[in-house]
């Protein structure tokens, strides 16, 4: 079932690109409006229900947040960030899940062919059957999203319910959201909506409101409207997420150079074989050993 066109595959060189023939798939986006969220966790529960994940019931850690971080069994997490403002406690909720970067660091870091793929609609998906559990994706992700499940040592994260998108439904979390803090639609529509919403927030007394759609990773298919766009770190979101330099260096420089070195070595070997040929030791040189056949012949001759 190839239900969604794949435009990018991990561990695949540019010489064999994924099929790009069809272009019917529209770019989709999930929009989290933090200014509308009341932290009810319906998104977290419906994610676990739809994807058949059951994280173990944890222990109280001094916060309503539970579990404290994403895991192989928790792909969507409601984060409770406590902010003190003029001596009053306020929560800032983050719908923590995969950001579905246009230029995903996880996909770039993954060396296993096709274990991480990007669909034409913008969704970044993991193929657990192919995952070898090296954890490169987990260490490369600037948002700290992919997690290795200790049960099978494979990486897991939010798929934006790619199985639902494939049949034309919205992601499970978006459907369940009671306050309308989560929205889903074409990327264009979500940008249009967020523009209106940010303008509305500015009028309502949030002059710093803005859309979190970081350019460092080429924009994300999971965008966020924040009260204060100048401080995404107060929502536990990186200020300027980038693909780590080590990943870029390794995948774009060291690996091609290594391949080039391999080919160059083989080429030089061939060239040497053609131009110089085998290393022949003359009979009168020291260390000469006659080939076995000759020795045999000689022995036969002697007899």
């Amino acid at each position, binding site marked *: *079932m*190839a*239900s*969604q066109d*794949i435009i990018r595959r991990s*561990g*695949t*060189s540019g*010489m*064999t690109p*994924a*099929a790009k023939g069809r272009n019917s798939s529209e770019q989709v986006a999930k929009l989290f409006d933090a200014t509308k969220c009341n932290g*009810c*966790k*319906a998104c*977290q*529960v*419906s994610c*676990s*229900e*739809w994807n058949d994940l059951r994280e173990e019931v944890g222990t109280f850690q001094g916060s309503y947040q539970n579990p404290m971080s994403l895991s192989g069994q928790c792909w969507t997490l409601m984060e409770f960030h406590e902010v003190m403002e003029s001596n009053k406690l306020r929560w800032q909720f983050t719908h923590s899940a995969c950001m579905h970067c246009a230029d995903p660091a996880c996909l770039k870091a993954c060396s296993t*062919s*096709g274990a991480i*793929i990007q*669909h034409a609609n913008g969704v970044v*998906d993991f*193929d657990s*059957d192919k995952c070898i559990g090296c954890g490169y994706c987990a260490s490369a992700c600037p948002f700290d999203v992919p997690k290795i499940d200790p049960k099978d040592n494979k990486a897991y994260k939010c*798929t934006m319910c*790619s*199985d*639902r998108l*494939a*049949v034309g439904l919205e992601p*499970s979390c978006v*459907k*369940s*959201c*009671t306050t309308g803090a989560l929205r889903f639609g074409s990327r264009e529509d979500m940008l249009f909506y967020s523009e209106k919403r940010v303008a509305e927030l500015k009028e309502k007394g949030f002059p710093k409101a803005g859309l979190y759609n970081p350019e460092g990773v080429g924009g994300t298919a999971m965008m966020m409207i924040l009260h204060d766009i100048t401080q995404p770190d107060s929502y536990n979101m990186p200020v300027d997420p980038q693909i780590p330099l080590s990943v870029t260096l390794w995948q774009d420089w060291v690996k091609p150079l290594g*391949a080039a070195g*391999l080919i160059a070595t*083989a080429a030089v070997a061939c060239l040497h074989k053609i131009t110089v040929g085998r290393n022949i030791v003359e009979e009168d040189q020291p260390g000469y050993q006659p080939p076995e056949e000759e020795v045999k012949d000689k022995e036969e001759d002697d007899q």
Partner: protein
Amino acid sequence: MNRRQFFKLCAAGAATSAISALGLMSEKAYAAVREFKLISAKETRNNCCYCSVGCGLLMYSKGSNGKNAEQTIFHIEGDADHPVNRGALCPKGAGLVDYVNSPNRLKYPEYRAPGSNEWTRISWDDAFQRIARLLKNDRDANLIEKNSAGTTVNRWLSTGMMTSSAMPNEGGYITQKFARALGLVAIDTIARN
């Protein structure tokens, strides 16, 4: 195998793996999307009974509805056509499938004697008998037939009634009739607990 053949084999192996590592080996593109789990599932509409909002639910069960198959609910999500919630659900509602399939679910009447910490299973008949008997005793002892002004009021204040919240209008009407006829004042539904 002599030394020379061994070197040849090693070189051939290295070259082959180098070629595959460079992405020159073709590979079939397999599906990466999980199969949609509601294909051919039976869809049943119902209302969530856990609060007074009364959200619409879509419950999905396995089996073709044929007479030999036992239906099992494996997924519940909001009903987008329902005017109350239009597809959305609260966290309790979003996790309802675990209520339905909970191993701790009460399936039959149980009795715990005063002072005991043991629950024992009793039959429905025994349960109804006992409930009716105790209600009757309490009502006979505590029913207020007339107030201080001598007006007939028929109030039964010593007992309250917790009713189902998963009822249609008709069920609610009958429940109300029954409770008020007994003189009950404190009536509520489990929707508010």
